[in-house]
């Protein structure tokens, strides 16, 4: 897997709290057996109700770094949510905080989801709005989001950060590597051994 150390792109601000996964990708678009084509439905209902939704605005169409508020991605475990953002073009998400399953799903797809302070988020929203062509660079080693001469500090749990920077974000290979340890664990579980071990 590829090391994810820096992500660069222009920003798209969606400065709301508690954006849930039903809003990111409404359930009717989960009627699919592949993730193909799911990107075009990101925020579909919100976009229809609000012509000014950032995902509708021409100036943000090529953006790669999504900036949002508190508890981003709460609700369902559907990986369709980060999949739709990724396929729409989002390469990193900066928010005040994340719901845990969503965060884990992002990491599993190699999408950094990093936190910034409310003040930092507000500042980012303002600079992106003022200049949608402004290039932002998320640096996972320095834990900063840089733009021009300035930067905003970001945070990320170490485990996720190192998984991304060392290219181990798809944990399947690591999990597969421990066949014997898995068998040894199974061998000591009472419920797999007629409860004899208890």
């Amino acid at each position, binding site marked *: 897997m590829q090391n994810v150390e820096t992500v660069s792109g222009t920003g798209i601000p969606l400065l709301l709290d508690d954006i*849930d996964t*039903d809003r990111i990708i409404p359930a*009717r678009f989960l009627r699919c*057996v*592949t993730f193909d084509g799911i990107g075009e439905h990101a925020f579909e209902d919100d976009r229809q109700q609000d012509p000014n939704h950032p995902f509708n605005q021409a100036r943000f169409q090529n953006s790669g770094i999504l900036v949002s508020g*508190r508890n981003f991605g*709460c*609700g369902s475990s559907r990986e369709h949510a980060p999949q739709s953002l990724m396929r729409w073009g989002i390469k990193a998400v900066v928010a005040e905080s994340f719901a845990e399953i969503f965060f884990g799903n992002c990491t599993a797809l190699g999408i950094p989801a990093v936190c910034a302070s409310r003040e930092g988020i507000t500042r980012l929203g303002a600079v992106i709005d003022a200049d949608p062509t402004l290039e932002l660079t998320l640096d996972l080693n320095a834990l900063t989001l840089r733009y021009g001469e300035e930067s905003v500090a970001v945070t990320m749990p170490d485990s996720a950060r190192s998984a991304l920077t060392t290219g181990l974000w798809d944990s399947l290979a690591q999990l*597969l590597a421990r066949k014997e340890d*898995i068998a040894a664990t199974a061998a000591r579980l009472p419920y797999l051994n007629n409860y004899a071990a208890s």
Partner: protein
Amino acid sequence: MSQNQNLFNKVWDLHSVGTLQSGQTQLFIGQHLIHEVTSPQAFEMLRERQLTVLHPERTLATVDHIIPTQNQARPFLDVLAEDMMSAIEKNCREFGIELLDLDDKRQGIVHVVGPELGLTQPGLTMACGDSHTSTHGAFGAIAFGIGTSQVAYVMATQTLAMMRPKVRKIEVNGELAPGVFAKDVTLYIIQKLGVQGGVGYAYEYAGTTFDSMSMEERMTVCNMAIEGGARCGYINPDQTTVDYLRGRPLCPQGAEFDRAAEWWLSLASGPDAEFDDVVVFDAADIEPTVTWGITPAQSLGVSQLIPSVASYDASEHTLIREALQYMGLDEGQSIEGTKIDVAFVGSCTNSRISDLREAAAIARGRHVADGVKALVVPGSQQVAKQAEEEGLDKIFTEAGFQWRAAGCSMCLAMNPDKLQGREVCASSSNRNFKGRQGSPTGRTLLMSPAMVVAAAISGSVTDVRKMLEPALV
């Protein structure tokens, strides 16, 4: 096992395969549950990487999310839904996984069938590509909702990579007043701690209120742990747990059951168990609870007034205004009397037999108000059968409710059961997010099944306590 370990940490340690380079634990998953929506891409991943399912016998599949609850003839009218059905049928056949298909009398919502078959047991680690997997915690299992990539990981390795969460004990003590149910308790906790209050935590629900709950009530509580942001929720196994499981088809039998029960009870957090945080509530403070907004924390007691924007922290004002505007409600307004268009009794939160009994007790001898569309959707075929044996279906249909086939239905409206336009739905489900019930502008008020029936009958949100038998009040 150390005396002062809580159940969560005992079960976690027992299932730890080792520590990964990232610092995450590789955790063995004792039971995997899958359904038609979040599994097809995972099976595709296995095919691409030429992997097999390591423990097909520790994996059970069912169909629930997209199932039509009226016309179930195959092929389904919805071509996309039919594709998903054929995909899970083919995948389960190819990978050797048992599937509770529509023609199997055990089919139903994944979080209803696991417990009723006795598959959900104390001390298990469980995973399912569905956030409400926390339901299984009612048995003292550690149960995680996971994404599709992780579904593939569990299939291939029977393990997950996870960080150990902290554990918060939420203690509720005292008796619930008549008309107050497990749903009200779980909504109340979320209202108090917020939708992200649980981030980074597993929730242990303890105290006399949970001690005296039935297993089905405990499932309702744990089901919504995820709505409070927690990674999972659980209740310590006790005699109620053991009694519920005895004799269930997928449980050990005979002497093996007794050995199992002894182990299960030994897992409970002891009196000296340590927690990262403890919160205490009083059951006497809880009344029938209804959501007024677009997150499960935006709720209030039915007798209260919708809070003013100013009463919230300044950082929440935008969100509160957005919620009020979307719902068409005003601050300071009473929630009681809010007109409804649709009433839905169902979902993995509240579609078990005790929920239907509680709903039927209010519906009996009354009639749904003119212009209200009311649905009862049992959680599984077995629940439906039991309800029909008890005549509950008749009570519902005579009262003007539609009696449907088992599935998720209007909880997330991936099947034909959907709100239209800005309809308002009194719902016993778990999410009131914008557009959740199938109409992008539809509105959801979460409440207990009894409160849903009370609303259906009055045509507007009503305090169910006014409809209880006088003897009970």
